[in-house]
């Protein structure tokens, strides 16, 4: 299978702080890849490097064979990579419908159009309605996004991310702060939305991770210490030591500071 996303010896430092210390990862097309690791391991930074929010200090990121680590976020998005945020990052003063519509305008070919009535773009309206129905926000379509309950804001976050139809989707802790039933619904939504696409997900909920992922990478202090199928990861002693057994083993050994 060809590679959807390829990270090569990716490094990022903020001053003397080395946050990402040489990450190499190859994610195949159609794969669901989870990145796990303790707090402060650099998971969000890794997402920021891939999506163009940060420039890497060294190393490279390729999307479907094309170098993207020197590009701007909006360029990377147009090339087919879309991401969500750990903290809901929505358009608060606009309605739910308008939020989703913003997410798909570019993919529908209406760049910076200022001569068409947005209400008259029937393709856009239909697609917006379809996405809202798929994610279950159709009843709240005309609500201001700021007034949505928390779990719905997280759903909207995902809806904006998938609206443009990107082939590679990065989700940063999509179920953070959700109740069990909300998490179940979110997972179902993610499963459905990522069908036929490449999914990279950062998640703390191990149930979600082992349920959803084809492969898992474990990031500890800016380095990937293991990559493999859920079974391999579960059985890996280094992972148990560094991460899964974190509660039992507060002192993590063998990890460069």
């Amino acid at each position, binding site marked *: 299978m060809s590679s959807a996303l390829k990270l090569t010896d990716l490094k990022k430092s903020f001053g003397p702080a080395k946050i990402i210390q040489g990450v190499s990862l190859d994610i195949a097309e159609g794969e669901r890849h989870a990145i796990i690791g303790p707090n402060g391991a650099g998971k969000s930074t890794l997402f920021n490097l891939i999506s163009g929010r940060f420039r890497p200090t060294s190393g490279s990121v390729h999307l479907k064979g094309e170098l993207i680590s020197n590009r*701007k976020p909006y360029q990377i998005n147009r090339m087919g990579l879309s991401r969500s945020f750990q903290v809901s990052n929505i358009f608060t003063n*606009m309605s739910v419908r308008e939020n989703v519509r913003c997410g798909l305008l570019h993919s529908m070919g209406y760049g910076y159009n*200022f001569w068409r009535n947005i209400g008259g773009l029937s393709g856009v309206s239909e697609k917006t309605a379809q996405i809202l129905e798929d994610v279950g926000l159709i009843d709240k379509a005309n609500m201001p996004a700021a007034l949505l309950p928390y779990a719905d804001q997280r759903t909207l976050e995902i809806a904006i991310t998938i609206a443009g139809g990107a082939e590679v989707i990065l989700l940063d802790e999509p179920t953070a702060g959700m109740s069990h039933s909300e998490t179940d619904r979110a997972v179902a939504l993610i499963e459905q939305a990522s069908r036929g696409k490449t999914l990279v997900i950062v998640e703390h909920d191990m149930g979600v991770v082992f349920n959803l992922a084809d492969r898992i990478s474990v990031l500890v202090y800016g380095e990937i210490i293991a990559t493999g199928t859920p079974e391999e990861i579960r059985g890996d002693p280094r992972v148990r030591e560094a991460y899964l057994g974190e509660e039992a083993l507060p002192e993590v050994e063998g990890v460069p500071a």
Partner: protein
Amino acid sequence: MTSSYVDLAPSRAEKFRQRVLPFILLAALLVVIPLLGPSRSTLTLLNHMGITIVFALSYNMLLGRAGMLSFGHAVYMGLGGYFCVHVMNWIAAGTGVWGVVPIFAMPAFGFGAGALAGAVIGWPSCRRAGTPFAMISLGVAELVAAAGFMFDSLFGGEMGISADRMGGREFLGLSLGPLDDVYWFIAFWTFIGVLGTWAFTRTPLGKLSEATRDNPERVEFVGFDPQRVRYLVFIAAGAFAGMAGGMSAVQDEIFTPENLSLIPSGAILIAAYVGGVRYFAGPILGAIVMTYMGSNLSDYTAGWLLYLGLMFVGMVMFVPNGFAGIIHDTWVAIRDGRLAEVWKIWLKRSVGLILIAVSVITMVEVAFRWSDGYGEVFEPFGLHLSHQNPITWALAVIPFVVGILLVRKAAKEAKA
């Protein structure tokens, strides 16, 4: 998944009520006004209102919609207007193609010139957002106004450049000589300006500008360059400001470097803000009120700028949604049938505000007469309020205290 989508768009009736009806009413209003036989001074006032409405709406494309705080928006109205004044003089000279251009078309020329000015000046200044953008706009306004005083052939120095609106050929039977003709000219272009700026809010770019205001970062991650969005909006705002400049060139037949300065830039910021930047109609209300105050309040009192300033500060602190916000909230309360429970609060608040106004006016009017030293005395309603009169001080202090208490009580009850 089902394939039948809920129709999210508003119904035809809603569309008509929200989108078509207001414009029909506006057009009707513009047509009816001259039938009421307004005086010359009223016509001039109305014409200035029209110009300010278009200018304020163009300003709100930046502030309210795109979240760009500009301190130099008069630059674009001024440059558009200056260009029109020059064009009017070329038309009067009648050389070449200019002989066939009607003066009526000036706002269109202003539109183009404003867009060009926005494109040139916006190129560097829209590279930054937020506070740096505001600072750059301030610097640009100073720079252009200073240039206005330096380049005499372009800007006419302190005297400015005059033109004659009767220099061109008639258009639609309007010679633009009499003020009535100018009214129709202004009415036409005001309608176009309102329609144009409103239509812009309905375009993908217009929606993106709101998205960029709310969350520029997320805009980047859905495939748009927020810098680009701001730049394009800036050009559009410059264009409509230039249109207002063209209207003003015909109405007043003169542009001076003052028109480019920070003073009109600040005035339009205030007009848009007190009107309510969150609502499309807000800047229209603000423009009407501010133009009215500017031309009429100054007849009553020398302290009118002070009142204006106090009103602006008061609105920013307590009524951030402006006049349009007040109207909207009032209407919502009536629509939801909450009038019975809120009218007492409103009454308290209104009485409180009136009392505060009484004391502030007394203080200001007495204070500047006292400071003038000409022995003039503030005499409203036959009262003789000199600074030695204890009634004066009673009027300055007691209503103020009572007013504040009432407003605070109303605020507490509104929260409960």
